[in-house]
């Protein structure tokens, strides 16, 4: 009894507490060099735990459950994690629904590379950099690897309203063409390529131009989010406070801080996370019930959708959410209309086809949680008492049937009781 009570209390605490984030630092210096990033992180309503990458007490799983909601790995060149954590442990963490943010650099270590490869992002070999002879920053030291990048993804929910170009110095990445889940958060410009600055180019680089990713994201099918920054430096204090100026354009404040903050918000599911609440469906004018629909009934469907915006659940507003009424193929497909409280509604007529149908909302937009709700209902045919009793077009048949019956009675009467008079006379 006591134990149960304790368990309940424990569960209650877990349920109400804020999301837990683990920040894995490469070494003592990282806290200094990335203090602004960490400070921004501190304002994101999350309980942060700091650990060093080689810390032997590093744990991300206890009793088969993950103990953090998100992990931020600021340790690009780590060769092996402490406590014998392998890349598989991190991948299991993602498969269990945890979010993961990692940074890479041109001295990227094997664990980071492996994790990235498993989420569909291939990091170029150690020692290579993204080089751009056209869009390098003027403070570049001659290798043209300190570049200005501005080709952000169009998805506002990830990168914010109007991100300013950012400074980048790091390793290039390529998306796995087989993996449909990778999101190109920041792409290199047309003139960029990935190679070691000191060597002659003898082989084709891993990727060039806009197929070269600088920041890559991935939203898994269980909606866990992963972000890989190609540059460890781009979220450092130094880059946060720098200005960008290419040989072509004028100087402007680097957008690194805002960009990194927006992307982290997305990765920690503080933005673009959708959830649905009550799903209601009923016949028009009736209370919801478990009873099957009848063909050609008028039905209503509503679903409450909420969106996480900057860490707050607010009613979701969108015009492109559709509901499908599916039996193998969709028989009805209609736009749902939201009200101010985020209740999406539609009224429609059940098709004249019986079977097992599903109300299906399948809202899959880049950057947003994949919203998938199905509710199975049966659509039954008419009962024997529900057909029309008299069909107007059949009146001639009714008339003929009844006149026939009448005729038969009259005929029987005459046949039985009529006597021929002439014969008797």
């Amino acid at each position: 009894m006591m134990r149960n009570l304790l368990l309940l209390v424990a569960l209650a605490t877990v349920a109400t507490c804020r999301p837990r984030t683990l920040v894995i630092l490469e070494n003592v210096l990282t806290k200094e060099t990335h203090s602004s990033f960490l400070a921004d992180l501190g304002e994101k309503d999350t309980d942060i735990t700091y650990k060093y990458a080689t810390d032997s007490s590093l744990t991300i799983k206890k009793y088969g459950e993950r103990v953090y909601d998100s992990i931020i790995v600021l340790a690009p060149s780590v060769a092996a994690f402490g406590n014998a954590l392998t890349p598989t442990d991190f991948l299991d963490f993602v498969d269990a629904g945890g979010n993961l943010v990692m940074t890479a650099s041109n001295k990227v270590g094997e664990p980071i590379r492996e994790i990235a490869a498993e989420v569909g992002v291939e990091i170029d070999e150690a020692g290579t950099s993204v080089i751009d002879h056209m869009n390098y920053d003027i403070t570049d030291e001659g290798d043209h690897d300190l570049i200005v990048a501005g080709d952000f993804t169009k998805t506002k929910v990830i990168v914010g309203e109007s991100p300013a170009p950012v400074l980048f110095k790091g390793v290039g990445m390529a998306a796995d063409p087989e993996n449909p889940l990778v999101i190109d958060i920041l792409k290199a410009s047309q003139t960029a390529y990935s190679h070691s600055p000191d060597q002659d180019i003898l082989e084709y680089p891993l990727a060039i131009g806009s197929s070269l990713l600088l920041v890559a994201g991935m939203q898994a099918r269980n909606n866990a989010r992963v972000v890989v920054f190609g540059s460890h430096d781009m979220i450092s204090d130094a880059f946060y406070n720098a200005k960008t100026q290419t040989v072509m354009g004028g100087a402007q404040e680097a957008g690194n801080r805002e960009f990194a903050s927006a992307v982290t918000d997305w990765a920690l599911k503080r933005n673009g996370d959708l959830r649905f609440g009550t799903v209601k469906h009923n016949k028009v004018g009736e209370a919801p019930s478990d009873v099957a629909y009848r063909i050609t009934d008028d039905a209503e469907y509503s679903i409450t959708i909420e969106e996480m915006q900057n860490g707050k659940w607010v009613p979701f507003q969108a015009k492109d959410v559709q509901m499908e009424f599916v039996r193998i193929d969709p028989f009805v497909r209609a736009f749902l209309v939201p009200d101010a409280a985020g209740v999406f509604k539609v009224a429609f007529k059940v098709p004249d086809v019986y079977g097992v149908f599903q109300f299906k909302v399948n809202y899959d937009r880049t950057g947003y949680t994949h919203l998938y709700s199905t509710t199975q209902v049966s659509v039954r045919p008419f009962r024997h008492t529900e057909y029309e009793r008299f069909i107007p077009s059949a009146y001639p048949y009714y008339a003929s049937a009844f006149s026939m019956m009448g005729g038969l009675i009259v005929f029987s009467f005459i046949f039985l009781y009529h006597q021929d008079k002439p014969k008797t006379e």
Partner: protein
Amino acid sequence: MAKTLLERMGIATLSQAKKETLVQMTILSVACILSFSVRLFSVLRFESVIHEFDPYFNYRTTKQLVENGYYEFHNWFDDRAWYPLGRIIGGTIYPGLMVTAAAVYNVFNFFNVTINIRNVCVFLAPMFSSFTVIVVYLLTKEVKSVGAGLVAASMIAIVPGYISRSVAGSYDNEGIAIFCMLLTYYTWIKASKTGSICWSLSCALAYFYMVSSWGGYVFLINLIPLHVLTLMITGRFSHRIYVAYCIMYSVGTILSMQIPFVGFAPVETSEHMAALGVFGLCQIYAFVTYLQANMSTTNFNVLFRTVVTIALAAAGLTFGVATFLGKIAPWTGRFYSLLDPSYAKNNIPIIASVSEHQPTTWASFYFDLQLLVFMFPVGLYYCFRELTDANIFVILYSITSIYFAGVMVRLMLVLAPIMCIMSGIGISTTLAIYMKNIESETPAAPSSKSGKKKASDYPIKSEIATVIVTVVSIFLTTFVFHCTWVTSEAYSSPSIVLAARGHDGNRIIFDDFREAYNWLKFNTPENAKVMSWWDYGYQLTAMANRTIIVDNNTWNNTHISRVGQAMASPEDHSYTIMKELDVDYVLVIFGGMSGYSSDDINKFLWMIRIGGSTPEGEHIKESDYYSSTGEYKVDKDASKAMHNSLMYKMCYYRFGEIMTEQGKPTGYDRVRNQEIGNKDFELDVVEEAFTSEHWIVRIYKVKDLSNRGTV
């Protein structure tokens, strides 16, 4: 001693007629009890459960009827079957069986005899076979004599051809339909003999009961008009027949149209047109006879010829136009396969795939009927010897049913009763003739006092009679032994629980089906969808209570074809089909381990054929699944398509590691007697979830898409 016993019971003092009645009643009741008890092997050996595949569905619907009443049953839309199409139960079944069972159940419970519905269902078929015994007695009595009736009744009680469909636990339509059919025949013969409206109406009611219980009523509604037509041609048509047929047809048809599944078929489809035509012909015939009686011969002839020519032309035209406009349903496939045994095989794989629809072999005639095969012509001979209206009816019945039984194994059931009736007549008449001769020997003097038929006297008359009577007795005894043996060995092993004999002679029970269905019931989500070949559909819904994709009611060929395609395609293609059908689990029956031969690999050819028979299944070609020498094989000669099909992989997954028989390599299939060709492979889109004790049932779970997008 016997005498004293008889005296003590007061029987000796009874009059001759009463004694006869007593003997008749005793024989009849013993036959009834025998017919009930001989069908109980399966219940005694196993337990009181529904044993077969199909009856599980009937059982489920009966439960619905008992629990929720008739209207709920009538309007029942079953959303568990045929996911996601669903099935209207009330409109797609013959409700006679369920209504009968429910009625029996309610009657018993009204009198506070608490018997549960499952037991009613299990014992319904044996009970009705007892009723059949009585009806056969009555029918034969009408046709021939009381003696023939008693012999026929005793035979129908134990004839294997009928037992095969009416053992305890086989709760199927046929169980009561044979009773209904014979009852209709009996009332029809009564009606045609007496010409009474009462008997004709009874016949119509019996016909209604028959229609409500089995699709085989079509045979009946063609046989009776055929009888009428034959009587007309042979000049035996009379007012009695006219009254009997007109009432029976009109009332019977209106009643039969009240069954939702039958609907308007009696006035629209070609199977029923013969009955309608004969009905019309009756009116014309009666009218013509009336005219003939009131007109001069020459006038009549002129009128007759003109009218007949015009009528024939008009009828032909109407028929053509109606068929063209689709008013008369095109000849349905099942009917074609009756007329032309190769029709279904060539055109409709789904019909041909049912083993019951295969042509009957000679061996199975003997197996199911034994002595009757030889005594049948004897009875037929005696029927021809003294033709009456009733005799003509049984002759027609026997000739048509022997033809149909030759076309389809399943219709052996229709043949069995008439075989009994004919043999009953044959044996009874033979014995009656020769028994007299034996008796005539002992009191030699009194027999010559009649002296009418000197010609029939011949030497060693009595000896011949003795030999014949002995031989017939021996035959009858062997018949009893044969019937009991067949019932015990062949027809009382349920397909839900399998039994086999081990090499030390012990009975081994394979209870894999129930093991697997229970696993499904307790380990999968309640709305999980299970895909399997349609044979197991009814059982899955009834025993595992899970939604299934296709079942034994094979009404939607496209849907079944889709499942066939999923089974026959390579994994990645199957996956898209399974996702389309929302499949969560896949169930296969595999006999390679236990030697159970009616497993999915042996049915696989049908899946390929049915799968390839629709446009979506164009990629499936039967020839791709044969080895290079054109054989159906599973060893290393088997084709690539075979090795890569989902069915092959699911059946033989990890089978290559298993040693099934001593002295044979691993992965030796005991049904096909081959070593499988593809031993070492992994499954990509499904994962093994459950395999039953003897590997008969294997259940796989359909995997989700990979979480991180990479395979």
